[in-house]
């Protein structure tokens, strides 16, 4: 239904009286009165909200709950699932109805976390026609916000929601009209989710892994650089808790991306920050990157496991079970190690010092060549240089080139992508989007090539380790061998596809766009680069 059919019920209106008044106007009966708890769910990075959906669980008692998925500001559910016992966390906790199919492409591997809880009393009324057929529902709700501990607090939010019945939309509209015209109810300004979040001081979308900073093109490079780096630190800190609690794989992923971006920014903003500090932080963040690597690797192998299974012959698939077990055990060990790293003195000192470094006001004058230049000039210069390096390295790759050369190109492209993303606010959005899209395709190809290479080698090593433990049969060795062969085959296909991806990236139109946006500044004139 394309209209908002939720109404606010003002405090002075008595619900009983409202029902009585309504019953005088139209035939309707009370269907049920329930006390329940309502929990809104979303992923940590608000994927449901971003896709315009709301997921809410209505729990009648400990054992019975129904979870609904509906569009934001609408009362009609797109899908619902009845679950028993445990709350839903991952896709696999949902019963096999289409709710799972709908959610899968949106939330993927992310965990669903409760974002707001309410205690709720719902009186459901049915609007009836002449033969007492239900033609619309009216849910009258009294919601009281609950804190995370479950203790009640806050005001009561009262709502009336008209829920249409298929094929009887006119009746639902009539009911909605009645509520606004005869009963004087006002349409609700925002979805219950938004209202609930606002009451606990939260806003949907309060976490994102994007470096969406707004930079003033004229700002000194050292000031603007710190804006970017501070945002990256914010992302790292926002994910720390999720890693410690081992909620899902993406906390560590976002954390590591932020670390990698930090290293890249430090390396790229040359002669912007004092060399000694840069070297120290580069060293420490490299340590952090390496220390968090093995845990992420295990996450990646486990996330890919379904794909791995599809790559081996069906008869050998069950034989991959020891590999999965090995990966899970290894992941647990690595996560324990990771938590120890996050608790270490070195990490805590790094973060405290880094925070202090970023908070220290920039001096305004500097002997460093780039520190006080406008950031747009420094960024353009770096981007233009990285682009030319990418073209040079990529153009030199032939069938005889060793894998190392593709790896070098991959690294350059990554640096280029990060620099473009950090600086995106200073250039026209449309241009940046197109450049990122062109770059992304090439990066995906290079990433695939690298991943298949690394994964086939590492899985081969795992196979030897599993074999040494003596927990597998020859079938498992064969299955992993089969998988390694399939991955090597895919690596070759990725390598073959490289040329076409590279040609697309290096085509004159893309090069001209890079030149137009970034080269001028690199040559000293900067005015036409600004928005």
């Amino acid at each position, binding site marked *: 239904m394309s209209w908002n059919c939720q109404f606010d019920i003002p405090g002075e209106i008595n619900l009983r009286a409202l029902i009585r008044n309504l019953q005088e106007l139209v035939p309707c009966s009370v269907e049920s009165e329930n006390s329940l708890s309502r929990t809104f769910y979303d992923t940590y990075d608000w994927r449901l909200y971003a896709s315009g959906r709301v997921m809410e669980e209505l729990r009648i008692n400990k054992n019975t709950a129904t979870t609904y998925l509906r569009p934001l500001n609408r009362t009609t559910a797109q899908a*619902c699932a*009845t679950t028993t016992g445990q709350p839903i966390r991952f896709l696999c906790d949902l*019963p096999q109805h*289409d709710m799972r199919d709908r959610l899968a492409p949106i939330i993927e591997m992310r965990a669903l976390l409760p974002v707001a809880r309410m205690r709720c009393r719902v009186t459901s009324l049915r609007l009836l026609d002449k*033969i007492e*057929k*239900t033609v619309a529902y009216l849910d009258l709700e009294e919601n009281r916000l609950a804190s995370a501990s479950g203790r009640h607090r806050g005001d009561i939010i009262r709502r009336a929601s008209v829920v249409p*019945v*298929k*094929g009887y939309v006119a009746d639902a509209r009539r009911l909605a009209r009645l509520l606004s015209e005869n009963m004087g109810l006002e349409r609700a300004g925002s979805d219950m989710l938004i209202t609930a979040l606002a009451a606990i001081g939260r806003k949907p979308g309060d976490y994102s892994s994007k470096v969406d900073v707004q930079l003033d093109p004229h700002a000194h490079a050292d000031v603007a650089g710190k804006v970017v780096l501070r945002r990256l630190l914010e992302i790292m800190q926002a994910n720390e808790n999720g890693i410690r609690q081992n909620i899902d794989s993406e906390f560590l992923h976002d954390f590591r991306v932020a670390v990698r971006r930090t290293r890249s920014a430090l390396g790229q903003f040359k002669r912007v920050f004092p060399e000694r500090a840069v070297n120290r932080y580069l060293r420490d963040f490299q340590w952090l990157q390496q220390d968090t690597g093995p845990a992420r690797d295990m996450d990646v192998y486990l996330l890919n496991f379904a794909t791995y299974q599809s790559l081996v012959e069906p008869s050998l698939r069950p034989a991959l079970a020891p590999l999965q077990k090995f990966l899970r055990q290894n992941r647990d060990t690595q996560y324990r190690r990771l938590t120890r790293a996050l608790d270490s003195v070195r990490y805590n000192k790094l973060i405290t010092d880094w925070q202090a470094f970023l908070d220290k006001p920039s001096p305004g004058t500097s002997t460093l060549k780039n520190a006080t230049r406008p950031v747009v000039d420094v960024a353009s210069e770096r981007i233009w240089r990285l682009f030319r390096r990418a073209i040079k390295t990529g153009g030199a790759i032939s069938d005889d080139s060793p894998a190392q050369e593709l790896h070098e190109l991959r690294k350059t492209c990554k640096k280029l992508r990060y620099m473009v993303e950090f600086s995106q606010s200073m250039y026209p959005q449309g241009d940046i989007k197109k450049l990122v899209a062109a770059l992304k395709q090439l990066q995906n190809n290079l990433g695939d090539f690298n991943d298949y290479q690394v994964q086939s080698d590492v899985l081969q090593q795992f196979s030897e380790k599993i074999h040494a433990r003596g927990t597998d049969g020859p079938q498992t060795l064969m299955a992993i061998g089969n998988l390694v062969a399939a991955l090597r085959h895919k690596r070759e296909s990725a390598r073959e596809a490289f040329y076409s991806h590279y040609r697309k990236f290096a085509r004159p139109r893309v090069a001209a766009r890079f030149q137009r946006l970034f080269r001028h500044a690199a040559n000293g004139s900067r005015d036409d680069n600004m928005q």
Partner: protein
Amino acid sequence: MKVLASYNIKGGVGKTSTAVNLGYLAAREGARVLVWDLDPQGAASFYFRVKPKIKGGSKRLLRRKREILDTIKGTDYRNLDLLPADFSNRNLELVLDHGNKRRRGLRKIIKPLRDHYDFLIIDCAPSISLVSENVFDISDALLVPTIPTTLSLRTLSTLIDFRVKHGLSDVQLLPFFSMVDRRKNLHRLIVERPPKKLSMMLDSYIPFASEVEKMGVRRAPLATYAGHSRAAAAFEQLWDEVKSNLEKPRD
């Protein structure tokens, strides 16, 4: 979406009450269910208090793409919708009987439903015809309520032969005894020892009960007004057995 058809060549065996009650139970579990009343008599529509009328009749329904979604009516139960009957369903045969895909005419029609429902339960008219063959074509399983009498068993046997002869073995046959009167010797005998040919007979059976007949007066599924009755329990058991059969891997 799983498609179930409540079907029998004979009339008055409990097809409609099967479609309505199983549809209700599935919806109560949270599945999104559509009951399609294909019987021109419109008994399922009557039970759900929906007018047995489709705008433009069955002809328009079958000829226009996506028309089916606009024809659906919600029932008194959330998650449970109905595609009402229409008197023109009696001529469905003629509408389907054209072109070289005459046995697959319904396939295209139900395509838009797949995104919207977990179960489509069809209440068929008693007969064996081109419409039935179309129903077999789209169904995952046929629920065949069978009264434990000699003639009914003979009809079931005819259906089994027909299914084999026409190469329709893709559709799972789920016959069960219905309207079982334990006071009658013959009923007891047949239910306890069904003929060998009917090894696929489900264990659950529906007893003959006045509560079931009252569905016509209450115009509602059994569980809504006689949830604790023996017949209601029998439908629940039947639904569980149907579900576990649907989940079984098939050769």
